[in-house]
């Protein structure tokens, strides 16, 4: 999937007025002048102001883990050399929102980096990105403005585990984009061993908006528990395929019109298959509590009349091959699990074996890849139980394979 997916800009804004994508009309970057007409100059605030505002609006990290940004900021030391890392690596293969944001609103990402750098008194910020178009948009934006000398741009290697924040840190520091075995967190030991405030590009854009609007203004949209908006990537049979900015609290059913009970993937390649989206909304805490975390904001629904099980088997195979090969349970366990899933698609397969293997992989790796892959596979087993029965009875369902999740080509 590429960043050429349309950034949806319906003039009527049925899902709330856009903030991060405000003023974006064409599929090109807002110039610095255009950006300033919409957002003004970055609102640089003291650390205490930013911390209190982040807490007040309960801003959650947008890379997938939904960690409270205030907690991350508070963990940073009060002085001494430290740095800021803006993670634009977008490892989640089905997600386009980070690349879209960097490509059409690069100045807002830079504003966010400047706001955090200022609040912390950090030496500077690094924006790590692997997509060439997003990199070009950010480079052009940095060249356009005089206030961003503290911001540098780094082109990183693509890859799923390679987009995980500790892998990005290792990649930039040692050249090897793999998560480390010790659970070093960036705020203790990040870029070049220094304390690093690291978060996803959308988080930084949200911080820029928060700094400008203040907590009360920021909370004018969204829900009480999670004010603001979210970027989502909608895939397949959806209201509008591509990247969309929606007010938090938007019902999933509004993004997935018709066909109640059809299988839906929430969260992407590390996501969860569900059979009913009734009552679910864009609300990270509520989605997590329902067992289907929003992750990097991907919501995908296969088209009617297609074989979802075949696609689940193909993606499982890819997830297995995407293991960085560092950790045995992931390296051996995921291929065995993918083979189990393939067996279901072939009308065989043992549920007991798959669940036993899943329990032997979950939680036994240096990063979240094995857990995410296991979640994808085991949730499919439940959500696609009817399809599995049909395959078991006939060896096939007779439908063409679903192929809404573009499996990335191997890069290494």
């Amino acid at each position, binding site marked *: 999937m590429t960043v050429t997916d349309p950034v949806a800009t319906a003039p009527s804004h049925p899902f709330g007025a856009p903030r991060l994508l405000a003023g974006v009309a064409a599929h090109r970057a807002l110039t610095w002048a255009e950006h300033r007409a919409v957002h003004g100059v970055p609102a640089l605030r003291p650390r205490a102001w930013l911390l209190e505002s982040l807490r007040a609006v309960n801003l959650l990290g947008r890379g997938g883990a939904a960690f409270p940004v205030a907690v991350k900021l508070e963990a940073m030391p009060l002085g001494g050399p430290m740095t800021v890392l803006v993670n634009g690596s977008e490892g989640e293969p089905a997600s386009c929102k980070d690349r879209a944001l960097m490509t059409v609103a690069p100045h807002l990402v830079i504003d966010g980096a400047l706001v955090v750098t200022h609040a912390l008194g950090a030496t500077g910020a690094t924006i790590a990105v692997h997509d060439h178009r997003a990199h070009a948009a950010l480079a052009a934006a940095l060249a356009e403005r005089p206030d961003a000398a503290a911001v540098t741009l780094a082109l990183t290697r693509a890859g799923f585990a390679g987009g995980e924040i500790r892998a990005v840190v290792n990649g930039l520091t040692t050249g090897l984009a793999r998560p*480390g*075995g010790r659970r070093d967190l960036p705020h203790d030991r990040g870029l070049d061993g220094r304390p690093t405030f690291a978060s996803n590009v959308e988080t930084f854009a949200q911080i820029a908006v928060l700094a400008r609007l203040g907590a009360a203004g920021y909370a004018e949209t969204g829900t009480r528990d999670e004010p603001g908006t979210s970027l989502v990537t909608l895939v397949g049979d959806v209201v509008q395929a591509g990247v969309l900015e929606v007010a938090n609290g938007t019902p999933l059913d509004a993004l997935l019109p018709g066909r109640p009970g059809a299988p839906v993937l929430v969260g992407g390649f590390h996501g969860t298959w569900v059979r009913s989206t009734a009552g679910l909304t864009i609300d990270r805490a509520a989605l997590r509590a329902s067992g289907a975390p929003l992750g990097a904001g991907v919501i995908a629904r296969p088209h009617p009349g297609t074989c979802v099980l075949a696609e689940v088997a193909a993606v499982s195979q890819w997830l297995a091959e995407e293991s960085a090969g560092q950790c*045995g*349970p992931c390296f051996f*366990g995921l291929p*065995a699990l993918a083979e189990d899933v393939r067996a279901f698609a072939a009308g065989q397969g043992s549920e007991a074996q798959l669940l036993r*293997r899943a329990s*032997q992989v979950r939680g036994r790796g*240096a990063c979240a890849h094995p857990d995410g892959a296991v979640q994808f596979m085991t949730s499919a087993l439940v959500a696609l139980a009817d399809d599995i029965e049909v395959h078991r009875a006939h060896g096939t369902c007779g439908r063409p394979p679903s192929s809404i999740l573009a499996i990335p080509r191997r890069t290494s």
Partner: protein
Amino acid sequence: MTAIAVDWTRCDGHGLCARLLPEKIGLDEWGYPLVLDPEIEPHLVGAARRAAAACPALALRVR
């Protein structure tokens, strides 16, 4: 309380830990340690340290 942890990036599945500390460590079907319970009671601390010292990959940590 003492606890054990496996550094999965180092572990090569030699399996010595499961032999030296069977009370706490089993093996999965691929030969990698399954930590049954990370908390080490005082009478097992010696065995846990021996298991960590015996690991050829230095992948077992006792804290």
